[in-house]
């Protein structure tokens, strides 16, 4: 009965509109990047609202703050291939895999999902010679996204959380800057799709399911244990979770991709990824090395118990280039993130 219904539906839809062409694997694997996003056929409509077959949406327990933009993320795997589970680090993805991330703004930040304007769609494509990072910037008509390699500044007008008009000086990174964040010992790599970041529920249509379980069940992922046995990053804004876990998750997502022994800030010796356990490496009573004016005249990266004298927070609160951290990817202050980290620093025992 159900099968018959499905068949009928398929026939009907076939009659209504031709089956959309599949994702253009040849375009994904081509040596040169496509000049426009539509060439990859990752989406079936002009405005890239409808993902093509083979794209799976995903979300991270704790995302990166990017000037209040809304983000949607998808994984594409070539038919018949799988990603391989890893307990730490990003999963291993087959050649031809693509990770897709769109940055968008609603007209009014208080009404997420409403009157959403796409700004850029970023891709990480796994080519035979390694990962390649590309970004496509949307036209005002929202009909086409064009490759942008050298970066750009785009003024984005929105209504802010307090109901006031706000113009965000949105920065599209140049493709070298993609690598500044996305690098492991100088090699371009994905950041988000790790077991611990995906170990949470997502709505798939009307049904909620753990993402690791879903990826396993649908054949996208091989080798994953039961989600309960997999590591998990805390949800930074879920007050039900312990403060320290939320703060460490926030620092991991917003800082840890540069501040780790293989990242762009490796030489700072300040390591903020979730796997770091040494308090000194995490910044506790650590004196800055090359902070310059970024020190704000303060002595320690983290002065435990005292957010107001911690360089780490000072740099999160700054909007000045040369001071602000992250040094790329934002022009606004993440007030909610600042409040979380301030609470966390206050909670650290001040004993010497």
């Amino acid at each position, binding site marked *: 009965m159900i099968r018959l219904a499905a068949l009928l539906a398929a026939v009907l839809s076939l009659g209504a509109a031709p089956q959309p062409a599949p994702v253009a694997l040849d375009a994904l694997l081509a040596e040169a990047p496509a000049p426009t996003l539509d060439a990859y056929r990752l989406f079936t409509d002009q405005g890239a609202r409808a993902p093509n077959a083979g794209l799976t949406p995903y979300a991270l327990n704790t995302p990166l703050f990017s000037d209040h933009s809304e983000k949607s993320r998808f994984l594409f795997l070539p038919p018949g291939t799988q990603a391989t589970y890893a307990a730490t680090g990003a999963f291993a993805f087959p050649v031809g895999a693509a990770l897709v991330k769109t940055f968008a703004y609603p007209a009014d930040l208080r009404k997420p999902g409403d009157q959403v304007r796409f700004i850029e769609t970023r891709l990480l494509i796994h080519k035979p010679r390694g990962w390649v990072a590309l970004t496509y910037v949307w036209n005002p008509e929202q009909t086409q996204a064009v490759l942008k390699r*050298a970066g750009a500044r785009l003024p984005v007008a929105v209504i802010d959380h307090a109901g006031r008009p706000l113009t965000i000086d949105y920065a599209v990174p140049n493709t070298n800057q993609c690598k500044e964040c996305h690098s492991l010992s100088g090699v371009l790599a994905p950041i988000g799709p790790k077991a611990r970041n995906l170990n949470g529920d997502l709505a798939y249509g009307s049904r909620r399911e753990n993402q690791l379980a879903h990826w396993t069940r649908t054949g996208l992922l091989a080798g994953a244990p039961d989600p309960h046995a997999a590591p998990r990053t805390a949800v930074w804004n879920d007050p039900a979770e312990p403060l320290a876990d939320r703060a460490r998750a926030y620092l991991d997502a917003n800082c840890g991709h540069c501040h780790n022994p293989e990242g762009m800030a490796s*030489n700072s010796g300040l390591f903020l990824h979730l796997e770091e356990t040494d308090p000194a490496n995490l910044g506790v009573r650590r004196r*800055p*090395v090359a902070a*310059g004016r970024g*020190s*704000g005249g303060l002595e320690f990266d983290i002065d435990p118990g005292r957010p107001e004298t911690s360089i780490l927070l000072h740099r999160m609160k700054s909007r000045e*280039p040369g001071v602000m951290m992250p040094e790329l990817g934002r022009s606004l202050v993440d007030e909610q993130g600042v409040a979380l980290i301030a609470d966390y620093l206050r909670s650290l025992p001040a004993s010497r």
Partner: protein
Amino acid sequence: MATSKRALWGATLAAALVATTAQAATLTVNPGPDAQERLQTALLDAKPGDVVALGAGKFDFTDGLSLDVDNVTVTGAGQGKTVLSFAGQKGAGEGLLITSDGVTVRDLTLQDSKGDGIKSKGADRISFVSLTVQWTGGPKETNGAYGVYPVSSTNVLIDQVTGRGASDAGIYVGQSKNIIVRNSLAEFNVAGIEIENSTDADVFDNVATHNTGGILVFDLPGLPVMGGHSTRIFRNKVVDNDNPNFAPKGNIVASVPVGVGIMLMANRDVHVFDNDISGNQTSAVMLVSFSRSFDDKSYNPLPRDIVVRDNRLGRNGWLPGLPGGKMLAAATGGSLPPILWDGVTTYPGYDGPAPRLYLKDGPVLNLNLPKAGEVEAAKPTVTATLGSPGLPERAAVVLPVGQDKPAQ
């Protein structure tokens, strides 16, 4: 047959290679609107072997620039002729970032970046030649930290570079290996030239003047690369370093007293010779141990295996910017002896021999501190010289073939 076939292949390959080299392109970028996008595009488009040539005039940038292609030369029309201005910079931690190998940046001025000037991270064979990197508003706490800033790099050449106005160091080499800094000028910085947590450096024929401290060789704890050693500092003019310290507090250089010629902290195997050192109100050459607390078991906070010889010392030490400095100066005849050692020979957890020093130039003031930084407990003694000869000097630093061309 097979052999000759292979030989043929080899010849074809060689010809092809020559052809590729011959085809090395020059990508020219001139000042004007959209300089940001045009230059950044050239830096992305460049292929190994290419030259990115910047025309004369002033370029205004709104964001940082970066280069990640090996063996590219970025050249301008000359210092002061091609000027890259970052006064309007809105993002990134430096003006120009280089993350690839075999890169040369030369013949231009880069100024007023919001963070560091030019940084190379993890680069092999990185050359900075005939550059001026400066902050044009004079020495200010809000200036960027470093002018020229190779870090975690190998085979570093800094030649005919001027670093001016940095709130940390005009020319700074950190956590790097095999380094030449020569024919350069560092002025109006907190530190003129600084070699930190680095190994095998030759610093010679430079001028360091009007900084807070002229030339610094430091080693700091808690960094991925530690245990810096083997630096030679020779034939430099280290004169009139008289700029009040303007480093933001919290940075290690904020503790450098005004008027230090050469300062060595917690490093091994440093030879200082044949320099002209004068006009530095605190000290000509100062050897100190790292005095802040540290947890790092593998860190040695003492300067050791240090030789200071055959320098030409002028007037130094007349108004030492040290705690109790005035009194010390009065007690030692109005001026501090030009060579100063804090006299610290041990630290918690250490039971090895006292550091070996040969301070042939003198007189030498030994503060005989029982512990790093305990200036109140000083028992100063003055001797004509200190230690004895015999510490081996490392051979000259040699850079890979093709990197090091002699200065014109």
